Every structure is written in C-alpha cells, then in structure tokens.
C-alpha cells in the first residue's frame, strides 16, 4: 500500500519541525472539531475537550502513524475513542445521532437528490450539504478552504494565492488539484452519479 502524503508531515513533526506543527493544527483542528460536534450533542465545550484530548494523544503517538490513511482519518479514530471515554466517565449515553459518515446507506439516502420537491427533499438537500462539507473537510491540505474561497467568497485566483502565500500559477494549479480531489471524493461518497444531480 502506498504511503499517504500525510506521512511526511507526521515525520516532520516527529523531528520537531515547528512549521509542520502549524500545518498539522491548521489543517486538522477545524475538521476534527466539526467531526466531534454532532457526536457530543453539539456541546462546544465537550467538543473542545475531546478534540484537545484527541490531538494530545495523537502527537504523543505520531511516530506510530504509518501513512496507511489520511491523518484526519487516523485522528477521527482517536476522537471516537475519546468521545466514548467522555460519555463513559459521565455515565451518560452518547446522543443518538444519525450522521452521514456513520451510516453505510449514505448513498441510498441521497438517491433522489434533485428530484421533484417532496416532503423529504429538504432533509436530503441538507444531507447533501453536509456530505459536501464533509468532503471539503477530508480534502488534503487547504483544498477545502481554497474551494470555499473560490466558490462561496468569490475570491480571485490572485487573492487565493495571497491568502496561501503562494504564486498565482501555484494557486491555479492547486485549485485544479482541489477540484479533481473533490470530484473524486464526492463521486466515491455519492455513488458515481453526482454530476447528474440537479444542484
């Protein structure tokens, strides 16, 4: 199995590279926080606690990360454990959440996206929105941010380049890669028919 590119980021962190730590935190805190929030009943304080515990545990164990999956996937594994521990300590039952990325039937749930408006259409549209946001969170590096800046904020390539402190050509190239990565990831999640959907 090929090593995930995140392996190099982890290796730099293990060597004590401050820049790598910054990159690691900037890339992973927000997605992990959003991962935790619905699983702890949208309690921001609890989410903060479990994410902090997750990241602290992760940096202690970083040398064991072998790049078999993305770092975020690896972190989510720790996070699930921390969430379970939190609810065990509190002698509480985790909230019953029905998350897209937790259920294998996600594709079926989205089958009728874009169909004529029906009572469940709004719900499914929300689920699609969440799926898009999940995919954006799972894209490598700053791809998700770049796509949001481009399509929601309407930033130019030059403005995106300035935000990322890279050249315009590099930003164009990054956007191309970000679109391709999004297309691949969303296709995988949606079952290969996303381009037929009316959005």
């Amino acid at each position, binding site marked *: 199995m090929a090593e995930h590119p995140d392996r190099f980021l982890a290796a730099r*962190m*293990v060597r*004590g590279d401050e820049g790598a*730590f910054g990159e690691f*935190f900037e890339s992973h*805190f*927000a997605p992990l*926080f*959003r991962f935790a*929030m619905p699983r702890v009943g949208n309690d*921001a304080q609890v*989410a*903060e606690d479990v*994410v*902090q515990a997750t*990241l*602290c545990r992760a*940096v*202690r*164990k*970083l*040398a*064991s990360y*072998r790049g078999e999956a993305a770092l975020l996937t690896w972190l989510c*594994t720790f996070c699930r454990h921390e969430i379970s521990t939190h609810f065990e300590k509190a002698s509480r039952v985790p909230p019953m959440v029905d998350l897209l990325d937790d259920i294998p039937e996600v594709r079926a749930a989205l089958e009728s996206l874009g169909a004529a408006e029906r009572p469940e259409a709004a719900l499914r*549209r929300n689920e*699609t*929105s*969440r*799926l*898009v*946001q999940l995919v*954006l*969170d799972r894209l490598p590096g700053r791809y*998700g941010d770049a*796509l*949001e800046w*481009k*399509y*929601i904020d*309407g*930033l*130019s*390539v*030059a403005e995106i380049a300035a935000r990322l402190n890279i050249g315009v050509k590099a930003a*164009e190239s990054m*956007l191309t890669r970000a*679109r391709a990565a*999004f*297309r691949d990831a*969303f296709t995988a999640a949606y079952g290969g028919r*996303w*381009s037929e*959907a009316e*959005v």
Partner: protein
Amino acid sequence: MMDDTDNTNSSDDAIAALVRLAGRRPPVPEDAARRVREAVHDEWMQTISRRRRTRWIGSASAVAAAAVMIVVLRMTPAAPTPQRVVVAGGQTNGAVIYANDAYEVANGNTASLAWGNAILRLDGGTRIRIASPTELSLERGAVYVDSKHSGVLIRTPIGSVRDIGTQFEVRLAEDRMRVRVREGRVDLQHGGATHSAAAGTELDADARGGVTEHSIAKNGAEWDWVVRAAPPIHLDGRTLAEVVAAVTRDEGVTAVWSDAAARNAASMRLHGDVPLTPEEALDTALVASGLTSRTDGDRLIITRRK
C-alpha cells in the same frame, strides 16, 4: 469577484454549484482553537523533548492500536498431537504455538509472546520456527529475548546464541548476524568457536566465521522497536514500583526515586483494567501517584509533581 482567467467546464460548474449549495462549513470558535493549540503544542514539545533527551522513547509504539499481523504456518500434520510449546501472550491474544510452527510478523508490525520462561519480541518482517520451550530458529528479521532463567538457544544459519539469563537481541541479515546484549551475558557459537558478550556489547558475525565486538548503548533509537513490541501492561493490582521496574527494564534505563514523596508512593497499588503501552502505563501510574519523571541520560528521575 470571480476570476475570469479560470477555465471551467461543466464538471467545474457542478462543483461550484455543490459547494455553494452546501454553504460555508461551520466555523470553529477561535478561542477554543487557541486554547487547544496551546495545549497540544505543549504536549508535542514535551514529546519531542523527551525523545531528544532519551532517544529511546517509543511514543511511536501505539502497541494497543497496532494491528499485529501474525501468520502461524504449521509444518506438520506430522505429529498427531504436536507438542505445545508456547502459550502466546501480549499482542498475540492467546494464540497457541506448537513445536515446528513457523511464526511470521508482517513488515511494519511487531509481536510479543510468552515463550517458556522468557518473553519473546519479534520485529516486523521476522520469521522464526519454534522447536521447544527453550529453542528456536531465527530465519529472518530480529528477536529480542527477555529471559530470567538461562538456557534459551537461538539458532540462525550463521551461528547460535545461548543466553545466561539476560536481555538480548539477535538480528539476522542476508550474510551476517548481530547480537546485542542489554543485560547479563550470551555465548555465540560461530565458526567452531564460542564468543561471549556481556551487557553493553554487540557481536557482529559474518558468514565466513569472522566476529567483531563493539560497545553499545543499552538504550537509544536502535532499541525502539523493542519498546514498540512490548506486551500491554495492566496496572490493576500492581504497585507503582512494579510498573516503573517493568517500563525501565524495557527501555534500558534505571529508575531513580529522587525524594521521600516519590519513594513513599512506590508501594502504592494501582487500579485500571485498560491495557496500556509501557509509555502510557508509566505516565498513568505516575500521574495517579502525584509524581512525574524526567530522563537524564540512562536514568529516569522520579519526583513529586509540582
């Protein structure tokens, strides 16, 4: 403002529409991000600092989480009731090994098992064949033996190693073998001669009969895999002193109880039934006892937590 230098096609239009449909991802609270960043950064710095000071920390280990890929290859149907020689423990989850079984560990993983009176650890890519409770053949890779009683024999195509109650590693490469002794003494039978190696010594033997001897550190990066391969530690019912002794033995360092508070806590009995890596066990046991530790060369200094 959209950038008109972009060349978009219908696929890109669809991506744009999807991203707009979804809207901006929920922001995270900035103050939470700042607090978590500080805490995680502190934790990271401590981890890095500890690695740099000691060079033996296997924070990489995550033994409990690591999938140990072990393949047991039965040589025989030969004996109808093969001799049961190993009740595997640690990461092997109770697998039973019989005489003439070959035992393989996948690259990138480690394994540990109870073998007779010894604890055996296997590095990734290792293959052994167990002959009896005191004898095995190393076919490739590396084993580490922690034996309280003498008499274990490790055979390799290049030479054989017999321990005299010790901790040692035998690593086999294509045309040479290396024996590194951490505690006690071993005898290497090679080329018709016996070469003894004491603690802190490495013997490097080639296939032509040559043997060279070097001094080595008893801790450091080259022993990291041994820590990674350590069987999980259960704290429940053990004293702090027992946990510290187990972990320092694994890591090749000596515990120093620096003050009365630390010494008094040594006999404290611990609770907790979650299997932990040595590093986690030490951290947990010290925190529970109101103590902390730092490393100084090959010493682990244990003091009261301030």
